[in-house]
């Protein structure tokens, strides 16, 4: 039992200690951002790995949540907590609606349809004056729990850490429930699952709704972190950033969401000073990973580990996916 739990416990302790050892800049610019971007990427990895649906709509969905909260707080005088609940509810509803429309397609068709959602949501928030056009919604009051996000940045870090851990555990739990197992059946053999009597479309729609719930949490943290939301936060580049994070981390491993996020955020922070063409380098990195290793960085590490320790335990995801 101990060897199985040990890595998780060590990771948990290390993550709890992060605010004590790193600089304030690192905590804000890298650690917190990694946690919430990782949550967004986790919603995509959940859909891709367990539902066979590579979704490009996750950024748009976190935009729906962030915009809903920001609009209710800044324009309608709601206090932050009810607004956050409303934001999550609206996002899940939008996710279920999108899922309903796309539930009869999968694979490459799903990718295309979800991309269309992403661009339509972007133009929606850009064009409707209620949401502030290019400027977006600024100076959104944050819940008092977080205090001043600059003075008490460790509070936001721990809140994001708890949320990320909860999302991780929740997804690991959901994929083991009868629903999660049936979803993996739908991913592997739609025809057989339908013949056995499962409602394929319903499973896809609910999976998309659940992923929207996860994405909505990322959206709330994005809003608290930035203090504002604008169309620039959910445009094509941001959409592809989340996909890049998921691919760097390995599209089929849940841990990969945060591994990809930390690599992406660190690269973004420390290369911006050296190159004006950051997007080109990220695109090139993305291209190389897609060409060479479908398992992403987590997959590269895994295959190296297998080469070094050939008798080590089998790939855990292989067991889950079998």
């Amino acid at each position, binding site marked *: 039992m101990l060897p199985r739990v040990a890595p998780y416990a060590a990771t948990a302790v290390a993550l709890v200690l992060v605010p004590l050892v790193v600089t304030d800049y690192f905590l804000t610019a890298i650690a917190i951002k990694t946690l919430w971007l990782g949550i967004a990427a986790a919603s995509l990895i959940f859909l891709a790995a367990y539902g066979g649906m590579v979704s490009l709509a996750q950024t748009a969905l976190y935009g729906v949540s962030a915009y809903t909260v920001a609009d209710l707080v800044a324009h309608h005088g709601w206090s932050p907590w009810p607004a956050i609940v409303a934001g999550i509810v609206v996002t899940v509803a939008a996710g279920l609606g999108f899922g309903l429309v796309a539930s009869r397609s999968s694979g490459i068709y799903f990718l295309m349809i979800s991309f269309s959602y992403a661009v339509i949501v972007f133009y929606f928030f850009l064009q409707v004056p209620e949401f502030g056009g290019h400027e977006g919604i600024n100076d959104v009051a944050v819940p008092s729990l977080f205090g001043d996000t600059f003075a008490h940045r460790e509070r936001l870090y721990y809140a994001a850490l708890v949320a990320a851990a909860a999302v991780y555990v929740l997804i690991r739990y959901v994929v083991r429930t009868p629903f999660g197992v049936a979803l993996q059946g739908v991913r592997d053999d739609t025809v057989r699952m339908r013949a056995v009597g499962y409602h394929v479309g319903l499973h896809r729609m609910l999976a998309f709704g659940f992923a929207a719930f996860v994405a909505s949490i990322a959206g709330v943290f994005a809003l608290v972190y930035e203090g504002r939301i604008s169309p620039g936060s959910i445009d094509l580049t941001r959409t592809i950033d989340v996909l890049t994070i998921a691919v760097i981390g390995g599209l089929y491993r849940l841990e990969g969401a945060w591994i990809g996020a930390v690599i992406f955020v660190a690269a973004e922070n420390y290369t911006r000073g050296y190159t004006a063409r950051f997007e080109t380098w990220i695109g090139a990195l*993305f291209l190389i990973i897609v060409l060479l290793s479908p398992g992403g960085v987590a997959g590269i590490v895994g295959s190296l580990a297998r080469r070094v320790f050939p008798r080590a335990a089998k790939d855990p995801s292989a067991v889950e996916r079998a």
Partner: protein
Amino acid sequence: MTVAAAARRQQLVRALRWALAVGAAAGAVAWIAYKAHGDMPTFVLVTLNGLTLAGLLFVVASGFTLVFGVMRVVNMAHGSFYLLGGYVAFDVMDSTGNFLLSLLAGAGAVAVVGLVVQQLLLRWNQGEELRQALITIALAIILADQMLAHFGATPELLSIPTWLDRGVAIHVYALQYPLFRLSVLGLAVALGILLWLWIAKTRLGMTIRAGVDDRQMVSALGINIQLVFAVAFLVGAALAGLGGGIGVAYSGIAPGEDAKFLLNSLVVVIVGGMGSLGGAATGALLLGLVTSYSQIYLPTNWTNYSILFTFVLMVVVLALRPFGVFGRPA
């Protein structure tokens, strides 16, 4: 659940889908008729705007659907090809002043880029649809950033050459309509006919159709399928580049237009059916008209929501035909 109950439920769901779609279509027609009946000249102009926009959409989306139909490649860099074609055309027009030459240059430059991409990146991943889509997404990021570096962020609008920049009488309500826009529509129709002749009547087109249905059998017969793929991708990219050249004079281009035209191409083929020329034409017509009508005939305080009607169009079509109007399951 018994089999009979399941069958009844399926029938009910199907009836509901039809009711939704027919209701939405009837509602839209009734609303436009109600708004338009007092002002027919405006209606004619708005319809012509929709048709000419459909022409531009068809030029771009036909390339997308051709590539998908032949190779099963979803080219997520198609919008970037459009934008690149537009920038090249703009630069050539700037230095030579020859509009037709600029269109050809835009199409030609993008065709070369497309061929290089296909040979270097896509050729050895044939059959891995998702990986190819991700490769073209990576390409879209790189191209967008490089175009921003080379062509800047300011929107570019080409002034239409004088020989095209005039109104023609269309003999309805004594209306005039810009010759340039009518030419775009004419060009789209001509391209559509040429593409159809190519696919339906020539030997290469026959090979392409055979390749769509059964790739392995075609290569087993000794036909060089790689050549067919290369030609298809080259033509598909050239059509995006040509669309960009038209687009820079039609509505202008700027960073971000790549995403917009990728969306347009996707919606056209999702609605019309992937891989079908007739589908691309149908999808382009529907999207062009929906865009044009929703900009004019929505109640004033709804105009900002016009983008949602693109979504409604997708919802209605996908409710009835999950693979688009002319689509078939892959």
